[in-house]
């Protein structure tokens, strides 16, 4: 006779009832599932002793039946479960164990704890082999993501972003931000990368596909990896209203270290005209008074915090609400998030509103439809200007303030009674930083819509036909104004730009799954893809404004308007065959053929295959307590890729400007004439697709019942036949020719190690370590060149690829004798330099993230330490602070005789130790840190950082079940990001800031960057 047992299954993560849990009487086929509230009733045969509770994503649990008729249990989520399901290419869900390649998933709770406004940043340190670099402390600034090393010689190696099967745009459009005769570097103003628009609150999980085998079905677009984002959906049987609110405070992470002993001047003599620290010692001239920049007589003193006090506390308010519901025939989620930020730089702010609607429904048996729609509106104001050759550059205007200047006086005296700017020097050589931030605003506003519709039909159980159609469309408006009266642009100017971008994507997929025999399962998939992008930019630059503060083109003496557009289309067909044997041996074969509009008609078609295999060898081992799970995997892929539009034919572009150094070139029409030019690059109508050949092997091991997990991976990627603009000697008349040439090898290891050093029923300590090491080598360059210029920095500094080496800096270095001693000028005692010296790798040797989590009852404490080892960085901030005598280290030896260590080169070519003293430390630093001298300003870029810390407390569920009918749970948290640089080797700046944005393959140059920030705040999350 059967007995009836009922009870409730509680979700250990939410303390709510868990619907859909399979409840099985052990040893029988008798079973049931829990209802929407987690309740179940089962009729168990009398002789049964145990119930088994299982649910995907949770640790299965067995419970003895005993004598009672009620069994309440709690299922704990299994973060490292064997049957973990991951979302792979094209949104296909696969069991993790069946994958023959490495992927790493970050779940929503990782993203919404200490959440970042730019979702890319929240991956830092959490995924091995993935490296994130951000440009600066600009709000909404850009972040670059590099997976397994840079593989391209010229284009940035950014992965593809895919949201619910829709590839979305992650470009960082560059648009010159002032008068276009001024060179911009790559980051005049950092307007961010478009992945920053993605709302972290809407994300269920991010899966990082690192290797070509993982991404082969996406083809060319994913040769640098793929970030697969799955958004949240309403869950069956659950209705929630979730409110999530964060408030954070931002401060400068690292300020320069200033000297506070010397005033401005020259060789020890006070001069108000200097903005430096080479004047007299303040303590020695206390009996004198000097005129300050306001013409007032004052006794000099150092204002130790004058730079610090320029920056303010920035605020971030992130508020979101989501309505989630799901039933048998459909689900629904509507999310709204509002972000407001103001920055450490006064006057800078960012506002973002995003709405997400994700809803699916079964309209007929076997026929499912789903729509996922997103609208994002972002606007920002007061973005700071960085890099060089622009009067509005902020960092140098602030850091260059002499130590004797009271920042309060600078703030209170921006404009005189005649409307003229009050500058810090009588020579009016630099801008008052408050003039810049109050008047010269760089802003943008973006409206973006992306979404997709999926129709999926299952005529029979083993066959699925689905079509996923989506689009990503945005328009961004940018504007930057420079008010008349700005030093360096006295007559004022402004620019406006409109960027329109549209991506349309359609995938039609037919898939089937059959058991060929009892042990052998076959999956077959065939698909067709159409991908189309269109980009359009219109920009106008206005010069010489007549009426103050009126930014209309009709108020300008000259307006240059430029426009451009590009279009690209890809058609692809693809297929996949998957075999699994007895659930422990898996084989996956894919193939894709693409036709790209950007390649010559004869070469536009290209095919790429991949093979991957997974072997869960523990299935063949006897059960043991040491090795709970073991898997070997290996994969190989060969993918092709196309290029940018319009690289094939010779055309003559009209010129808007003609260059002259220091940003003072000319614009056309000039004296009434236009100008056209041959292109800088010789086009190539014989281009063929680029090729990436890669393989990886790895293993996944779990010991002691998952107490320790280890994922180890080795990969080796060779990207060859790159489509590059190969530098030609300029004497050919061209800068470059478009060729298929060059190859880059990236090989490396990735280790993800997880362990719980301590675990009791109420206290858990777990640690995850992500380690990766990538070795990039330029394997093969065309015979005619020995190195290839990847990107150009300032001051003659270049990032180059040289055969057998990783990308590195080349520039002016110390002149050295054969023993390596620095050669010193016999006349001046100053170091000599020579051009074209290799100055170090730009990429790190290895990276490591250590994530610790402590859980005690309802309290969770976590912190993430992020480590970078190796690589170098050039700092212009350190350069200018040193050459100006403002940096703390310039105090050393002042007033003393200083003989630099080195040798003199004699006329006969021999060397003798240097005995010539420098004339002054001003001369020494002027030479050592001259901006044309790269080596003096290059540092080791290694760091150890406390990246993230969060303390979360879940209010006990009991509080609500008794007292409140509608509150389901409340979590409160304290969170901090980038709190502490535990160790670094670069003076004055955060070694992470970087002038090259995501569009450049280069990095490692800091050029007047706005300092990065540390933030600290709190978070409340409530579910109703």
């Amino acid at each position, binding site marked *: 006779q059967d007995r009836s047992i009922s009870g409730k299954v509680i979700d250990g993560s939410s303390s709510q009832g868990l619907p859909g849990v399979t409840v099985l009487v052990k040893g029988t086929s008798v079973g049931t599932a829990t209802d929407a509230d987690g309740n179940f009733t089962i009729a168990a045969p009398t002789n049964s002793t145990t119930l088994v509770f299982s649910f995907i994503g949770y640790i299965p649990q067995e419970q003895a039946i005993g004598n009672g008729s009620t069994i309440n249990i709690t299922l704990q989520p299994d973060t490292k479960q064997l049957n973990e399901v991951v979302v792979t290419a094209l949104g296909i869900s696969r069991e993790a164990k069946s994958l023959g390649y490495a992927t790493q998933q970050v779940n929503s709770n990782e993203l919404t704890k200490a959440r970042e406004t730019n979702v890319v940043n929240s991956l830092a340190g959490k995924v091995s082999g993935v490296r994130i670099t951000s440009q600066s402390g600009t709000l909404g600034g850009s972040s670059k993501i590099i997976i397994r090393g840079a593989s391209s010689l010229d284009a940035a190696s950014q992965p593809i972003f895919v949201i619910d099967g829709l590839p979305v745009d992650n470009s960082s459009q560059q648009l010159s931000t002032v*008068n276009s005769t001024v060179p911009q570097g790559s980051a005049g103003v950092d307007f961010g990368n478009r992945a920053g628009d993605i709302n972290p609150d809407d994300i269920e999980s991010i899966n990082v596909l690192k290797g070509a085998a993982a991404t082969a079905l996406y083809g060319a677009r994913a040769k640098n990896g793929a970030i697969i984002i799955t958004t949240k959906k309403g869950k069956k049987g659950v209705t929630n209203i979730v409110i999530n609110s964060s408030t954070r405070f931002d401060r400068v992470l690292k300020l320069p270290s200033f000297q506070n002993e010397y005033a401005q001047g020259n060789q020890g003599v006070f001069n108000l005209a200097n903005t430096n620290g080479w004047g007299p010692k303040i303590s020695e001239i206390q009996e004198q008074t000097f005129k300050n920049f306001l013409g007032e007589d004052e006794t000099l003193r150092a204002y130790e915090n004058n730079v610090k006090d320029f920056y303010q506390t920035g605020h971030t308010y992130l508020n979101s609400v989501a309505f989630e519901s799901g039933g048998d025939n459909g689900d629904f989620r509507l999310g709204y998030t509002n972000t407001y930020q103001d920055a450490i730089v006064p006057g800078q702010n960012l506002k973002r509103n995003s709405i997400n609607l994700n809803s699916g429904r079964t309209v007929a048996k076997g026929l499912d439809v789903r729509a996922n729609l997103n609208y994002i509106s972002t606007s920002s104001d007061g973005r700071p200007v960085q890099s060089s050759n622009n009067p509005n550059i902020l960092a140098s205007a602030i850091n260059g303030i002499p130590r004797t200047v009271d920042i309060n006086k600078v703030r209170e005296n921006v404009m005189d009674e005649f409307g003229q700017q009050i500058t810090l020097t009588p*020579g009016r050589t630099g801008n008052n930083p408050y003039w810049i931030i109050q008047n010269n605003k760089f802003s943008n506003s973006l409206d973006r819509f992306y979404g997709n519709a999926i129709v999926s039909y299952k005529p029979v159980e083993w066959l699925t036909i689905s079509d996923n159609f989506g689009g990503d469309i945005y328009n961004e408006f940018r504007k930057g104004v420079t008010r008349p009266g700005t030093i360096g642009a006295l007559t004022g100017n402004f620019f406006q730009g409109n960027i329109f971008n549209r991506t349309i994507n359609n995938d039609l997929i037919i898939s089937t799954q059959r058991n060929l025999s009892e042990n052998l399962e076959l999956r077959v998939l065939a698909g067709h893809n159409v991908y189309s992008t269109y980009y359009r930019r219109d920009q106008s630059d206005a010069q*010489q404004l007549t009426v103050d503060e009126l930014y209309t083109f009709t108020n300008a003496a*000259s307006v240059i308007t430029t426009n451009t557009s590009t279009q690209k289309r890809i058609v692809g067909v693809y297929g996949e065959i998957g075999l699994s044997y007895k659930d422990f041996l898996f084989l996956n074969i894919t193939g894709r053929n693409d036709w790209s509009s950007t390649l010559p008609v004869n070469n536009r078609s290209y095919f790429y295959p991949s093979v991957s295999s997974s072997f869960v060898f523990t299935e063949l081992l006897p059960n043991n307590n040491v090795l709970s799970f073991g898997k070997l995997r290996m994969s190989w892929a060969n993918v092709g890729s196309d290029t940018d539009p319009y690289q094939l034919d010779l055309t003559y572009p009209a010129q808007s400007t003609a260059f002259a150094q220091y940003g003072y070139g000319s614009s056309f029409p000039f*004296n009434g004439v236009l100008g056209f030019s041959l292109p800088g690059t010789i086009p190539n109508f014989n281009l063929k697709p680029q090729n990436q050949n890669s393989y990886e092997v790895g293993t996944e091991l779990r010991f002691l019942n998952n107490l320790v997990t280890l994922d180890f991976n080795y990969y080796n990627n060779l990207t060859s036949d790159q489509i590059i603009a190969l530098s030609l000697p300029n004497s050919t008349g061209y800068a470059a020719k478009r060729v298929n040439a060059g190859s880059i090898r990236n090989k490396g290891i990735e280790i993800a190690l997880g362990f719980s050093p301590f675990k009791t029923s109420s206290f858990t300590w777990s640690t995850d370590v992500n380690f990766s090491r990538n070795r990039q080598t330029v394997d093969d360059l065309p015979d*005619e060149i020995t190195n290839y210029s990847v990107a150009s920095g300032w001051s003659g500094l270049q990032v180059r690829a040289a055969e057998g080496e990783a990308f590195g800096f080349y520039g002016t270095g110390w002149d050295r004798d054969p023993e390596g001693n620095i050669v010193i000028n016999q006349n001046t005692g100053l170091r000599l330099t020579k051009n074209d010296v290799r100055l170090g790798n730009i990429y790190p040797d290895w990276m490591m993230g250590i994530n610790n989590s402590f859980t005690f009852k309802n309290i969770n404490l976590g912190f993430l330490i992020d480590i970078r080892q190796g690589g170098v960085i050039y700092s212009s901030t350190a350069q200018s602070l040193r050459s100006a005598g403002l940096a703390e280290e310039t105090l050393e030896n002042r007033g003393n005789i200083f003989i630099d260590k080195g040798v003199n080169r004699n006329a006969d070519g021999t060397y003798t130790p240097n005995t010539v003293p420098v004339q002054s430390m001003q001369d020494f630093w002027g030479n050592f840190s001259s901006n044309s001298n790269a080596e003096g300003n290059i540092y080791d870029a290694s760091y150890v950082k406390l990246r993230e810390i969060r303390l979360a407390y879940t209010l006990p569920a009991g509080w609500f079940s008794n007292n409140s009918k509608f509150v389901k749970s409340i979590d409160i948290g304290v969170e901090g990001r980038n709190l502490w640089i535990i160790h670094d080797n670069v003076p004055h700046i955060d070694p992470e800031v970087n002038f090259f944005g995501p569009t450049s393959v280069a990095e490692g140059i800091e050029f007047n960057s706005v300092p990065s920030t540390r933030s600290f705040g709190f978070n409340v999350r409530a579910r109703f």
Partner: protein
Amino acid sequence: CENFLDVNTNPNAATTVDPKLLFSNATVNWINSRSGGDLYIPTALAGQSIASGGNNPTGWGIPSEEQYQISPFSTGNTWRANYTSVGSNLTEAIRLAESAVPARVNAAAQSKVMLAMVVYETTTLYGDIPFSEAWNVEIAAPKFDPQPQVLEGVLSLLDEALAQFDLAAAPALKISDYDLFYKGDLTKWQRLAKSVKLRTLLTMVDKDPSKAAVIGQLVTEGGMISSAADNFLVNYEATAGKRNPKFGLSDQYNAGTPFFFGSKYVVDFMNSIKDPRLPKFFDKPAGAANYVGVQPGEDGDDDVNVRIAKSLHRADAPDVIFSYQEQLFYEAEVNARGLGIPVNLAAATTLYRKAAEESSKFFGVDAATAATFAASLTDLTTLSNREAVKLIHYHNWVDKMDRGVDAFTQWRRSGPEGDEVPNLTLPVGAPAGGLFRRFEYPATNEIASNPNAPQELIPYNSKMWFDL
């Protein structure tokens, strides 16, 4: 599928162009290079025709180009400009003009004269350069021709152009409105071509005395630049985006205060001859009684030393590439040295006085003062021949003070090492080892990507072929 993918035609650029559109672009790029920070500043500072003002807070600053710290950008950008935006567009203009039906002979000839001048400038800067194999899509690594061959090539280009000019041809066969120099006046182009031949030959003659005869013939035949109306220059405009880069630099970065000071070598000489161009060249500090230059590298004193005049570096100041007074100085030199013609110091006196007069007028001195000044200049017949020649050289150099590379070349060809005019010494703070004599080859723009380029560094202080 085929049609769907046929979207790779560039909508942003022209598929065919009139040669004049390339010619105008080459022109503006060339003058920008010459007046811009990459060529003007290093050659004028290292050549000591202007001075940095040392550590003066609103001076250019040291160590800088004056101390021979010349950015690889400067040597690279100048090379790039002359070979790509200037040279390649001229070469393409010639190709398009000559392949047109009917051939646009005068457009081709105009482009050739300008190309010859660009090549001359390039070789005087860098020494041996690619010429015979340059601007050829088929040749990825052009060889470097020795300087005498390059200069011979310049002469050949000019001769080709002179043979090609057809004054009777239809106006459509020349560049008129897009010729920013002469607006299509072919007679002026012909005169210019001959004058450029003279300048080229004078640069060669010290090393190759056989050129003296050709020089004599050229001067005897005449037909070279013969008035200020023939000046080969382009005016900048006083409008934003079209201003002279020399003006732009001070305007943008120094609150309008000129960065550069008067070089002692120029100011002292001009003082000695009571030169009426002094206030045109320099701005004196308020209250200063005299024009006082600075030794290159020394600190400029704002109460004492003169800066380059704001009016000289005004927004609409021209870039001057060949002037009438320059022609007269060359002719004076030919007479004084007796190159291919008998030595005639009296004729040389007349010519160099006329040159100084034209120069004065060019820089804004009124005609009467200019004439008086010219008449006051030393009669060369009272000097030894070498002294006479040196005086002409000094005047020629002072006239070119603000023309960077042109003054630098004038100085180098003015005499053998140690006897140049003026007799420059090492700027303060410059490394020992000799004066600046050339741009080093740019690593990035040429050497690194050209296996046929000299790989051994040829330092800035080593002489090139023409420089004795």
